[in-house]
């Protein structure tokens, strides 16, 4: 499932490393890394937790794109 994200940017903005963000949202460092690389799509719960911790909406971090159509903007 195509799910692009700007997680790395938001994480850097908050000054967290992957381990710290993982601890805040109850995920492992590896999971955060896989999400940032686009190799894993988080569940709704995890995506909401991440957005909440970063102080933004889910759509600001995760974008669903299908067949080249941008759903967000």
């Amino acid at each position, binding site marked *: 499932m195509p799910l692009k994200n700007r997680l790395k940017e938001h994480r850097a903005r908050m000054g967290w490393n992957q381990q710290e963000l993982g601890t805040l949202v*109850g995920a492992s460092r590896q999971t955060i890394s896989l999400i940032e690389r686009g190799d894993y799509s988080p569940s709704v719960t995890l995506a909401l937790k991440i957005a909440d911790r970063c102080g933004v909406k889910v759509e600001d971090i995760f974008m669903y794109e299908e067949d080249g159509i941008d759903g967000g903007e």
Partner: protein
Amino acid sequence: MEANKVGSRRQTTMKFWVILLISTLVGGIGGFFSQMYERSIYETAMNVRDWSISKATYIMAAVSIIILVSALFYYFRSKRLVQEWDQEDEEMFDKIDKTQGIALMITTIGCILTMIVFGLLMANIVNGQLENDIILNMIGIGVFIAVNIALTFLQRRIVDETKKLRPEKQGDALEVNFRKRWVESCDEQERQKIYKAAYKAFNAGNILYMILFIVLVIGQVVFHLGIAPMLVLGIIWLVQILVYQLEAMKI
């Protein structure tokens, strides 16, 4: 659309009958040739069996050394990589993760392989060999016990090293409920990976059991194996399928 579905279903049914026919032919031909060459197959197999039973202690020692050396190699390599890791490099993290995984896999395979060789040792004891063989067998049993204890403690050390990479992980490898505690401390991505791996193993098992069934049928013709092997296979297969189906029904 409907016509396509019907066509596809017919194709699948045809394929099923073709596979069934080919399997029957292969089984029939295999059975025929095993009956034809029963004597020579039997003699070769008995020679291999007798040789491996008589050399069981040496095989146990060789297997133990290879397994321990390989596992320790990967364990110390992962330890060194963890020390060199700067806590940020993702490629290094993946490399360490893979090395630890290999080390753990070798220890698990080692336990199973030594268990198989232990079966040969028991066969040697049951055969009632001369006194020298009995001493050799005892040495073999001692090696089996020692190497499995060593592998268990090595697994514990590897798990401890894994926790340096993943501090959120829980469980001591020597605990009875270690697997349960470990999985409980996994996040959604890690559990998904475990479930995918388990499903793949389940499918591989089903294919293997079918192959073993064919081998045992042919083996019954050539070696007069008795009902025990087929019964054991049936029990293992049934347990696997039932556990899977009952768990799937819960969801």
